């Protein structure tokens, strides 16, 4: 089976994630969490310089 046949929407029908309506929200959450970590760690670095 080719990769072009895999579509994100199909996966939701087959296998809905337990907490979120769409995976896009999940990925946005992960990126947001990472940005939050970097921001907090940057503040931490600057504060204790």
């Amino acid at each position, binding site marked *: 089976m080719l990769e072009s046949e895999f579509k994100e929407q199909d996966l939701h029908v087959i296998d809905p994630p337990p907490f979120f309506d769409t995976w896009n929200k999940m990925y946005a959450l992960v990126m947001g969490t990472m940005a939050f970590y*970097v921001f907090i760690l940057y503040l931490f670095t600057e504060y204790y310089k």
Partner: protein
Amino acid sequence: MSILDWVVLFGTLGFIVVYGIWKTRGSQNIESYLKGDNDAKWWSIGISIMATQASAITFLSTPGQAYTDGMGFIQFYFGLPIAMIILSVTFVPIFYRLKVFTAYEYLETRFDLKTRTLGAMLFLVQRGLAAGITIYAPSIILSTLLDWNLTLTNILIGALVVMYTVSGGTRAVTQTQKQQMAVMMGGMIIAGFMVVSMLPNGIDFSDALNVAGKMGKLNVVNFDFDLNDKYNFWSGITAALFLFMSYFGTDQSQVQRYLTGRSIAESRLGLIMNGILKIPMQFIILFIGVMVFVFYQFNQPPVFFNKVEKENMYQTEYAGEMRELEQQYDDVFVEKEAKIQALVEASRSGDESHIDIAQQGALDAQAKSDGIRNQVKDLVKKNNPDAETNDKDYIFMSFVMDHLPAGLIGLLFAVIFSAAMSSTASELNALASTTTIDIYKRSINKKGSDKHYLLSSKGFTFLWGLIAVIFATYASLFENLIQAVNLLGSLFYGTILGIFVVAFYVKYIKGNAVFIAALLAEACVVVIHILNSKNIAPVYLKMSYLWYNVVGCILVILFGLIIQSMTKKNSSSTVV
């Protein structure tokens, strides 16, 4: 160590091994042995992924790294959440739809048998040797600290892992990793609380943070771009991203962890759990190292943390010089402690000019102290050119043995053994899967029964365990080989990732083109490494090893495109 420590250590390890065997007893087939019947939940997958990556060296080296160089190492993990998302979107659904046992099976579906075999062989060579180092690296340190025989330490770790991995396969690996992870993080967090509570009277947590910060140990984020700097924000989100894509997407020891999921969603959540929790986990481990550094600003540290090597020096002609350096080190410590106290007072006062003066005084004293430590290392090297003078890996466990109470010492040794076992178990499990599925079942014996392949998998697990222990036992004889094995991952990962990226995203490139492109790209990466290691690389090729992953991956795509277009031209001119 006290009797209580031995009871805690062997009680913990014994419980994990027995639990792993008991929990996965009963009849099995190849599906359950290699994929755990696909019944793992997301949190179980997440723990397993994290436990596989966390080797003993993670817990031995990382606090030592923070002690000497600060917390900048954490930036290495900034690319991890991005890698987890890319893998969740691309790799995981394809592996699931094809119901593969190994990542390399997919390569035959997309390209051909020779590309699959190339991917599998690269993995077997690299991971097979690395499994030996996963046992050897902690063994050499643990045997020194515990005064054990190195070979027996290798055999102990290998035997414990082989027992439950052969017996229960993937399910045993996943089951035991839950306990191992609990021991690892529980032990480290307790150690963290202990070191903070052992700071001298009058020094609180806030003072400790101020001291660490002013001494340059809380330099977590650095936005300056420098190709030669291994750890900065940019290398974390670019070069390390490629490394993590390759490690989690194409290394069977990780792929096998999330292929045990009961659904695509569970596997994705497991990966995402790893992406979210890894940075805090590394922060905790590094922060403990920084707190150990602060502790040693108020308590006399040893001049050289590898005590066995230090004691050996007193039996040589350099004993006098060694004693003299140790005395100087003790004197500088007294001077430095006074400067650190002054820094604490200045920080409390909040007067910036006082803080700057006190900080400079403390940094100067630290530089003096480091200078003496370097002289000791030079002396150790002078006495024995083969001696290991990097004592970073001994810092944390020396602190544990010298300052933590009975019981906790045993627990912290259990942390190190658990970490060694969890990563080795995943490696043996993945090596057996790849050997059985990609080599034995595909190319040697295609018509065996399910039971035959189950027994073969168990046999291969045992065999790889044996090879790992033998390699670990003789590793000390081949110091250069160890360095080569450690480097091997960086040299191969970019190329392997390139093959998979072409497979997923560049449909234009076919089997022959990607195969030749991979070989050419690998040759280029090796040449770049040789130029860098001999310091003769031109400016545009000067880079730290992390960037080999990016270069290897991009070269496979570029060479693949060129070769494919040439092949097409040739074939069309032939037709005409």
